[in-house]
């Protein structure tokens, strides 16, 4: 068997795989088309024109290491986002299933489609993200925080110049640190809890992270970290939905508005934050 034949075979195999992919793309398109037609027929009797990955289920992508918004209690997700999504699911007549994902891949995965329908991961609504996906109406007002070893002094971002700053990859905290701290060496972590472990071990000098999460993570922490500054950013969290699924965004907004009205939202808010929403 000559070498060149081996390469021909390899090339053909590669071509085959590629063509399968492109065929897959075609069928997917037509499937989507028929699905929307079907559902519009159904739509006359039930409100549900949106596309779902799995029928009857609302699959939710989430970075479940972000308490009190979402964290894993054993293999069960819990938190503010989880309860709120469950309540929305109830309104829509769908079973809500949380799937643990890595924060920075949430948006590309949602855009690629086929894995989950919604992002519920304490995600700030930002115009940069809105170019890729849609967001529901905001459901929580948040800010940033700077976490350092207890007793550290901090007067402004220039104090941190040249220091190692731990952030969660793909977050607004990362963007803030990048823009505001001159010559900072950013060290991105997969999730917030890993960043905190690294700070406790002294691998990074400071962490920039969402304030409510830092508060929660440090509440019963004896590793000698504290919030040295609160950074007002006034960012707002929203649930992310694919741009091709505007019907779902609308349905979720409606459900969210109903939950705010009937007091369920306030109840869930108080359960997780201990105070009533504004």
């Amino acid at each position, binding site marked *: *068997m000559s070498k060149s034949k*081996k390469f*021909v*075979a*390899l090339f*053909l195999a590669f071509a085959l795989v590629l063509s399968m*992919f*492109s065929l897959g*793309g075609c069928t997917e398109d037509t499937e989507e088309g028929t699905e929307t037609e079907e559902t519009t027929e159904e739509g006359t009797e039930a409100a549900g024109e949106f596309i779902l990955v799995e029928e009857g289920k609302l699959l939710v992508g989430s970075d479940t290491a972000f*308490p*009190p918004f979402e964290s*894993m*209690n*054993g293999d069960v997700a*819990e938190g503010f986002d989880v309860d709120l999504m469950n309540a929305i699911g109830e309104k829509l007549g769908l079973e809500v299933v949380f799937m643990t994902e890595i924060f*920075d891949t949430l*948006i*590309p995965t949602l*855009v*690629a489609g086929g894995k989950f329908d919604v992002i519920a991961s304490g995600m700030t609504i930002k*115009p*940069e993200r809105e170019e*890729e996906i849609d967001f529901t109406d905001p459901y929580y*007002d948040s800010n940033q925080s700077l976490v350092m070893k207890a007793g550290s002094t901090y007067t*402004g971002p220039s104090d941190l110049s040249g220091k190692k700053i*731990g952030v969660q990859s793909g977050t607004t905290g*990362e*963007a803030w640190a*990048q*823009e*505001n701290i001159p010559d900072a060496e950013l*060290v*991105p*972590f*997969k999730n917030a*809890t*890993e960043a905190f*472990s*690294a700070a*406790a*071990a*002294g*691998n*990074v000098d400071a962490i920039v992270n969402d*304030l*409510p999460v830092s*508060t*929660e*993570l440090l*509440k*019963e922490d004896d590793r000698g970290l504290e919030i040295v500054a*609160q950074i*007002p*950013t*006034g960012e707002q969290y929203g649930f992310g939905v694919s741009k091709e699924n505007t019907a779902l965004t609308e349905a979720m907004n409606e459900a969210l508005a109903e939950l705010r009205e009937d007091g369920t939202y306030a109840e869930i808010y108080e*359960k*997780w*934050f*201990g*105070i009533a929403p504004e």
Partner: protein
Amino acid sequence: MGDRIVRSMRLRRAAAGALLIVLMLSVAAPALAMSTSRITIDQKTGGLQTRFTYQATADEDAGVDRIDFLFPEGFDTEDVYVELTLLDGLKRIKADYEVEILESGAVSISFDPAVPAKSNLFIEVYDVITPIAGGTYEIPVEYEAVTTDDDTETRKDPGLTVTYATPPRQEALSRWLENQSLVRSWNSVKFLNIFFKPQHIVVAFPLLFKGWLKSLSLVLLAFPISIIGGLLIAFMKMAKIAPVRWIASVYINVIRGTPLFLQIFVVFIGFRTIGIRLPDFLSAVAVLSFNSSAYLAEIFRAGIQSISRGQFEAASSLGMTYWQAMQHVIIPQTVRRVLPTMTSEFILLFKDTALLAAVGIFELMMYSQNYVARNANLTAFTVAAIYYLIITIPLINLVGRLEARLAQSEGGSSAPPKGRHKRGVLLGSGAAAPEGAPAPGLGPAVGSGPQVDFDHSAAKHESR
């Protein structure tokens, strides 16, 4: 993991009142005076649509009813839009405002009612196109302050600058690609757009190169260390003194029986928490070496013990000591036998460097993850895959050739048929794709000489 669950449960139980404390603290948070305000940008190079973020706290004595950003010449503000966030401490408050883009390029934001004194202001001006040439530019800001006696006066917020660089060549190339019709139609296919976007390929390739070098240097440093460590442990495991054997066994079993991921966390988080710390790069090399030496130890031990006892006996009958026999008879044969498995271990170790991204080592995976996070596109993963394959494919090939040569050189014993068999099937299946099912008679032509019988079986295999 278990610890974390327990903690998160405790956290929930203790949830009540915590946010209240946060809000109380926030009132006392130090406020930025308008004079310590700043402007930041989200791009590092010029010529791009850029977001300008102005952060400031309104003066103590006056509200603000208009802010003008006087962008200098060269800044294109034609298509800008403004997002505004107004905070009282940490609490969002409602703001009504209108944005006007003046002919001069200035962006003017007027508030009705005026922004209250001391409130925190965030103004994000999106899609300003900056001049391509890098440098430090001053952005003059003027605002109309409304004092308590309803007087208005124009105040200045001077000295606000932004700095960025001239874009490097690959970025310019990426932007040129953006406007090509061929690239556009390529990108209109979702699969190609997500995994093979040309604009990202040209930028990610040079960027990820640094990560590739880091991964490569990690494994090139760690592997020789693990060869020495592996040999040491292998001999310990074959030692005559029982406790030495036990130590080696425990080491091998613990390392091989736990994930590398866990070992990384122990060294990077655990050891450092109790005060043992090495620089990041050395820690990474250490973890990889610890891990790999356990696997290599087993590979070496199996290699040495696979040499028949008779050779030892023959060597000692020639008057050689144990170590002389090892050095002149056993080891040379072992090296040839373990070379393929060692190369495979090298490939595994190289791929395992990816796990170090979790603890903040800037290796190939880390670079590609960051790129993906920033650009919401998976092309950087494809580029990383190519970088990994550049190393692994030639090595995988080498393993195959080493195995074949080993099989040939050890002809006669039980090894050759096994080796030939593997190779025969490999070649057979390769031929199947272009030629369809070949005639069974083709089989013997593939091999040659004494293995004719065996190649028949391979041919049978492929036609099935």
